[in-house]
């Protein structure tokens, strides 16, 4: 059924999806790097971010001023919803994870599952159990680059994701706060001894991760044109896979893992079987963990836990 004519559309689709996965996986990988915990509620933040984006978009679109000024509209929607999702992420950490920091490693996971359940039901009950349409902000124009067709939304998603990833790389490596995050991530106890306020660093990590997750949520809404209260789970699992694939705790690794996973998944769906699309992600995950448990770029020893 598949032939080489579909490789380019699938590749473009894969890169777009990969960009979204990469953005989400940053939240997982940063939190894991610092606290060695799987922030299970991160997928719900992606969903919440998508809904925040939806509100803001529909609100701003009522004003002709914003209708005529696309750049300003998008900037304000993205920045505002990033703030809200970021605060949500940091609040979850403060309320549901911080009291459990000294307990065994299973308890934060369970608390996170509780948060996840709470948020899903909150959005389902207060908004709608049905899928909600996402307003299309700008027209989908197809561009032809040689044999490759790419539309404006795909270009937008890829550019936005790369922009945020570059910004994050710059922030983590070049600023004082970013270096503090790196220090906390490599050894939180020593970082504390060096005078770093690790509690605020942890809050900051959750804020950044959740803000990026929120952006990813909006991008998902724009790409597929609709969002739903239970959309987070699939993206969460895929993004987590991406984080593990690249080497968990490693920021460039998460980006690489995201793009690889997106591309492999779309090509697998096109050439092998679309019904088993999600299976590829998990098979890749299992193979990587068995043969290279540290991930592609990970340096963290697997026994550090």
């Amino acid at each position, binding site marked *: 059924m598949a032939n080489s004519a579909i490789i380019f559309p699938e590749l473009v689709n894969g890169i777009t999806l990969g960009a979204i996965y990469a953005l989400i996986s940053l939240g997982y990988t940063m939190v*894991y790097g610092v606290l*060695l915990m*799987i922030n299970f509620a991160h997928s719900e933040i992606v969903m919440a971010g998508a809904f925040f984006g939806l509100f803001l978009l529909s609100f701003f679109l009522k004003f002709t001023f914003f209708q005529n000024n696309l750049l300003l509209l998008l900037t304000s929607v993205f920045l505002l919803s990033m703030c809200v999702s970021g605060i949500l992420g940091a609040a979850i950490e403060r*309320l*549901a994870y911080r*009291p*459990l920091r000294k*307990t*065994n*490693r*299973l*308890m*934060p*996971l*369970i*608390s996170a*599952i*509780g*948060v*996840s*359940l*709470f*948020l*899903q*039901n*909150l959005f389902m*009950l207060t908004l709608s159990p049905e899928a909600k349409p996402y307003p299309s902000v700008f027209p989908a124009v197809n561009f032809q680059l040689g044999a490759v067709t790419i539309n404006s939304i795909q270009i937008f998603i890829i550019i936005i994701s790369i922009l945020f990833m570059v910004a994050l790389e710059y922030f983590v490596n070049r600023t004082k706060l970013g270096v503090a995050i790196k220090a906390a991530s490599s050894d939180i106890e020593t970082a504390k001894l060096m005078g770093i306020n690790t509690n605020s660093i942890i809050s900051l990590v959750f804020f950044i991760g959740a803000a990026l997750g929120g952006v990813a949520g909006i991008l998902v809404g724009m790409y597929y044109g609709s969002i739903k209260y239970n959309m987070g*789970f699939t993206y969460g*699992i895929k993004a*987590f*896979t991406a984080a*593990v694939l690249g080497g968990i705790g490693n920021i460039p690794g998460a980006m690489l893992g995201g793009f690889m996973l997106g591309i492999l998944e779309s090509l697998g769906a096109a050439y092998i079987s679309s*019904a*088993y699309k*999600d*299976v590829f992600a*998990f*098979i890749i*995950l*299992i193979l990587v*963990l*068995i043969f290279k*448990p540290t991930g592609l770029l990970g340096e963290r020893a*697997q*026994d550090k*836990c």
Partner: protein
Amino acid sequence: MLKKAKLLEIFFIVIIALAAYLLHLKQEFYLVHILSLAGIYVLLALGLNMVIGYTGLLDLGFIAFYAIGAYSAALLSSKGFSFWAILPTSILITCAFRFLLGKPLMRLRGDYLAIVTLGFGEITRLILNNWDALTNGPKGLPRVGETIRPITLFSFHLNSEISYFYLILFFVAASIFAIRRIERSKIGRAFVAIREDEIAAEAMGINTSYIKLLSFTISAVFAAIAGVIYAHWIGFVSPESFSFWESVFLVCMVALGGMGNILGIIFGVTLLVGLPEFLRITLGGEFVLYRMLLFGLLMVIMTILRPQGIIPEKRMALELKD
């Protein structure tokens, strides 16, 4: 001391059996159904506890083996096999899958193992959902025209809710008995030793990867029993009963009740199966919709208030006495 505990357990089981009969007489069939469901979860949680509670391996895909047990039972039953032939066969099949998956995984630790098991759980569900030729896809088993044969015991047909409840209760009691034996055996102590300190256990001469694989494989026996009974009881299996959330709830039951403690686990199951039902009854009307919301909130509050579990394990004290 131990004898007293055992008597208490038997007393407890008898009380539950009588209570169920009372509900049956009062025609509260739905409540008997919930009790049976709780029994199935106890079986699953007991199996999962062997991996998480005793050996300290976090397994997020346990439900996959419950699914394999249930599907193999549904397939065999529609081919005409009886429950008593299916039970050992399904246990064998399920354990074989568990063993083959576990073999390459035993050198992974902590979260990595959790993620791989999670992945395997999802793969299983997706295969059940898509392999139409074998599993009939999302429509589930049995296919139109086929049925899962009822369980017969000495020419007595199990067809009411209460008879299934007693069957489940019997298996729960037998499992608790078996687990108590394992717990106090050399192997059971090896499980706990690995949980406490894997390197020290290895230094004491425990073949850790073998023991871990053993714990991993034995746990599947309970999943298989639960799956086979479930398939016969409900008479229908479909992929949506085996979602990732089910695995997650199982982990919560084990951890909230008190890891490694059988009583704690039973309590955890009662809490997690019972609470949504309780909220459904007490809230009533429109508020029924909010029960999962409250449930999520309560999960967070419970972990914060009692991070060691509601009835934590007293193994350490016991160990010193041995």
